[in-house]
């Protein structure tokens, strides 16, 4: 009897478990696995005469992505990938450099001021991305004080303006993603064990070593989380490069979008999107390695 009860208990436990995980599984299958599989299939299909993917399966899209076209090989697409990578790395680094001291400062501020300060960091992201990008256009456009200042200092030719440019794209990315770095960093700074800084100083560490051993390892989980939150969306960013780059400096996100819209080359777009996913996964693995190298063995794992 005990056995029977155990078995019915087992079955009900299994149903219970299925009931619990089913919504999540269905959600992921419908909205992630299925579209990804569809995308992957398209990437290996032939681009039809009317812009729709057709059979047979080929590697044509990937060849085109690598630069082989009607006119022979061209590095244009590789430039796009390289430019996007460089822009992502640069923007993420700038975001870290700004967010790290900001998060530290907020974490040391009087407790009653901290929510307000965090709110000030987050509030801009409640406005639509497009509107904020257009705002930057108005700040950076030719003839604005900012542009005139940059021209006067000799950074740009007169009358050119800071927008559209690679600089404007980078600025837009940094501005857009700052909160996503500040928040996880604030979380780790808030529970920073300052005794470790004292210990490092007590043991003869100067400022750099006290930071390197007393602070940095403790903040690695926040840095890793922030980097994932910033770098991955920045890599696939469409709106900001499109608006602030003025369409001059094509980025991967725009390249993909164009294939599905104006250029009507779905297999090519899907192939580019696949490359983006692969690059993201590689980036995550590098980040994980780096976290281990720097020594945050527990908690840095993603």
């Amino acid at each position, binding site marked *: 009897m005990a056995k029977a009860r155990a078995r019915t208990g087992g079955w009900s436990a299994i149903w219970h478990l299925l009931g619990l995980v089913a919504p999540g599984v269905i959600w992921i299958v419908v909205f992630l696995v299925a579209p990804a599989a569809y995308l992957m299939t398209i990437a290996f299909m032939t681009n039809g005469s009317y812009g729709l993917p057709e059979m047979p399966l080929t590697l044509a899209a990937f060849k085109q992505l690598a630069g082989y076209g009607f006119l022979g090989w061209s590095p244009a697409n590789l430039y796009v990938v390289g430019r996007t990578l460089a822009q992502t790395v640069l923007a993420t680094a700038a975001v870290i450099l700004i967010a790290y001291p900001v998060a530290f400062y907020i974490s040391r501020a009087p407790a009653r001021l901290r929510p307000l300060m965090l709110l000030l960091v987050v509030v801009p992201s409640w406005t639509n991305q497009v509107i904020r990008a257009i705002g930057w256009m108005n700040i950076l456009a030719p003839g604005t004080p900012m542009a005139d200042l940059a021209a006067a200092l000799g950074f740009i030719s007169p009358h050119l303006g800071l927008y559209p440019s690679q600089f404007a794209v980078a600025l837009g990315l940094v501005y857009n993603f700052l909160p996503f770095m500040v928040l996880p960093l604030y979380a780790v700074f808030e529970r920073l*064990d300052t*005794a*470790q800084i004292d210990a490092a100083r*007590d*043991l*003869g560490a100067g400022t750099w070593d006290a930071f390197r051993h007393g602070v940095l*390892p*403790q903040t690695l989980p926040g840095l890793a989380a922030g980097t994932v939150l910033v770098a991955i969306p920045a890599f696939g960013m469409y709106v900001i490069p499109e608006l602030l780059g003025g369409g001059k400096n094509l980025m991967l996100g725009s390249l993909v979008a164009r294939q599905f819209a104006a250029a009507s080359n779905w297999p090519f777009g899907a192939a580019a999107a696949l490359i983006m996913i692969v690059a993201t996964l590689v980036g995550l693995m590098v980040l994980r390695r780096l976290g281990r190298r720097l020594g945050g063995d527990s908690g840095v794992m993603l």
Partner: protein
Amino acid sequence: MSQSRSPAATEAGRDNAPRADTAISLRGLHQAFGPDAVALDGVDLDIPAGSFFTLLGPSGCGKTSLLRVIAGLDSPDAGTLSIGGRDVTRTAAHKRNVNTVFQSYALFGHLDVAANIGFGLRMQGHDRATIKKRVAETAAFIQIDNLLGRRIDQLSGGQRQRVALARALVNEPDVLLLDEPLSALDAGLRATLQLELLRIQRRLGMTFVFVTHDQDEAMVMSDTVAVLNQGRIEQVGAPAALYERPANPFVARFMGHSNLFAIRAQDAEGLTADFGRLAGDFRPGSHVLLRPEVMHIRPADAPAAGGQGPNVIRAQVRERLYRGSRMEYTVAAGETTLVAVDDNRGQGMYDIGAEVALAVEQSGVVTLDG
């Protein structure tokens, strides 16, 4: 307790440098973190070299602030601090030959045990071979050589404590500061490590400055104890002096005394307090302390001891606690209550309500000021 020390040179290869008699000298140290947060209020203190010196006080009394000033982690608002005869008031922490064992241990989670212990040597720029050798020596001395390859999160509390100790000792500091290093450990481990710390201090002959709020721990371990209260030093002395001759009511209460009474009237013939009158020519003071050990409890109808005879306080038993080796009574006398203890020699316990007499030894009555 013997004051002699074994030479500083040990199997760990420490050089036996001559030491000045005073390791640390503090003069007029003031520190405040705001108008209502005075941590140190004019601290003058001389810490003898090679001694186990304890800063004792309740939480918030300034003992940890004082330790941080000695370590160089905080700088005082006023006053001077010299270590080994050299004024280091404005010397940065990393340039002082002083190391600390922190209350939370503050071990580096990203380094293994060996790298944690070797951290100070690495910061001083020693080469790998030297670091490895000295880490191994110190680890052997503290008996944690089997842990060297472990990560910090694989260690128990007691092991972390030892690693923190080794990390400080490996640098051969002039002074080792210990900030309540045993407070996070359970009672049994605590007792073991108390003895071990004492043994290490005796063997190295190093000056240990130990912070604690536990007067038992302070008494067991220290050569000298300084009692702090609200940023001031109340009394400095050997544990026996503090316990038997506390300078003021605060020290008396902090050392665990409960029989402390304000003196109502005093003259050359004796003194009067809430419990009654004691005859004798006592030093004038504001309070009188009756240590339970110098009061002998006996039945009220027992004949008084012959000769000059001690003072006798008539009392009635109100509460009794059986403590194994001794019995503890709360007795009512005059307008107040006293605590009296009786060694357990199998004589049984007095009943609640029993009339008793407390024979007070003249030499055990202490009058205090303040």
